[in-house]
């Protein structure tokens, strides 16, 4: 089983996680820029965070043979803090970088006017920089938030096939399927989705335009729940090819629209020509 986790916050995870993910079949990840738990108060904090997502974190992932790409954006929570508005001015410079395969996470948290503005502005950036968009849906008032999200996406003029709407569940999946956008599901230990429920969704809706992620971060989450979902699909009678489509080919197709996805093999310890590296020193 080869796995591409299309949404995971590796910055918050340990090297033990990387090791376990690689052992479980995870060969590629996309890390969306999001909130860090502690609110940031100035654009410089975001610049350092973005630099890490296109510099240090891909290097760290490569130590474990995992390809790492990023999506960058001002997230909806922090879009509400006027001190962070300058992040929108920083973004164009970052959206040109090779490791950036989408604009995201954008969308709604509390559906405020400031979120409206940041969401629309960043969908426009996705169109301008020819990147797909990864859209977060709110945890409170999710169904209304998802409907409003799809309206904003439609108004922006971005092709629905270049948009993934994430953190869906039984209540919101049909809305997104009918819009033509990709359907993202985050599998969590307690909240969001679980592997058995994900199996039922795929039974009902098929494997097309479905993305399954762990969305693992600094909260109670589990980077191996993509692997668990693959096993649950096999146990429910789906073929290895179905599982490969959902857990590998679909994310490759979605982010491949950026033209920047580089899945050439990473050999652990082969991060510069002809040498092994970083054994951890003395």
């Amino acid at each position, binding site marked *: 089983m080869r796995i591409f986790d299309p949404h995971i916050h590796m910055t918050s995870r340990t090297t033990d996680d990387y090791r376990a993910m690689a052992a479980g079949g995870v060969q590629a990840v996309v890390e969306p820029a999001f909130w860090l738990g502690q609110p940031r108060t100035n654009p410089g904090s975001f610049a350092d965070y973005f*630099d890490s997502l*296109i*510099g*240090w974190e*891909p*290097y760290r992932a490569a130590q474990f043979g995992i390809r790492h790409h990023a999506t960058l954006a001002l997230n909806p929570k922090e879009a509400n803090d006027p001190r962070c508005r300058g992040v929108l001015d920083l973004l164009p*410079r970052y959206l*040109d*970088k*090779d*490791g950036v395969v989408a604009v995201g996470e954008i969308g709604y948290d509390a559906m405020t006017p400031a979120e409206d503005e940041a969401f629309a502005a960043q969908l426009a950036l996705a169109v301008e920089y020819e990147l797909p968009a990864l859209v977060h849906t709110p945890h409170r008032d999710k169904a209304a938030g998802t409907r409003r999200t799809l309206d904003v996406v439609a108004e922006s003029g971005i092709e629905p096939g270049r948009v993934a709407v994430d953190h869906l569940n039984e209540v919101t999946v049909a809305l997104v399927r009918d819009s033509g956008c990709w359907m993202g599901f985050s599998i969590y230990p307690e909240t969001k989705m679980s592997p058995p429920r994900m199996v039922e969704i795929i039974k009902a809706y098929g494997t097309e335009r479905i993305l399954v992620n762990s969305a693992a971060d600094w909260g109670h989450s589990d980077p191996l729940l993509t692997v668990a979902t693959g096993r649950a699909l096999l146990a429910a009678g789906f073929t290895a090819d179905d599982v490969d489509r959902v857990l590998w080919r679909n994310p490759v197709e979605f982010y491949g629209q950026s*033209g*920047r996805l580089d899945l050439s093999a990473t050999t652990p310890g082969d*991060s*510069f*020509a*002809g*040498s*092994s*590296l*970083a*054994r951890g*020193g*003395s």
Partner: protein
Amino acid sequence: MTLDDLRAAFRAVPGKPWLDDALARVRADPDAAGPLFARAERKLGRAPLADGSAWTAGRAGRALLLAELAEPERIVTLYHQGDAAERLAVLAALPLLAIGDAGVPLLHDALRTNDTRLVAAALGPYAAHLDAAAWRQGVVKCVFMGIPLSVVHRLDDRADTQLAAMLTALATERAAAGRRMPQDALALLNRLTVANSSPKQA
């Protein structure tokens, strides 16, 4: 390798028209350099420039873009605003550019990282501009991180008794922990020790 060598090798690269256009745009407006520098690798590719060359088309294209910038501060800014590959391209280009000592802070920055590619790139030919203390720290950091010492430019010319003392101290710590020194570090230490214990030829 010189900039003219890179230009000559570039004649055979399929992305040459893109590069020619990019160079002209930077010449006309240095502010245009940022996005072009960022895009260069995916426009020009990562194939070696010629058989056996360590330069890829993308990295060579980036070096030629940097060569169009008359003000060193612009090169420093491109490094700081770059991803890891862009920073590596700046470090590789430094010895080819008429930049004087202005790139030295970039070497210090790269040597502070924990990315073996950046540390190695900081110890190339431009490291001639590094003072002895910083250079020795860089060499010992290579040993510490498992970077082969073959990346260090003019290693034997610059290695001195202070470096030998630092390597000896590291070897002592490793021995106490039951861990090994890399072979190339032991060989260097051996050369330095032999050189010091035998009378030098006049």
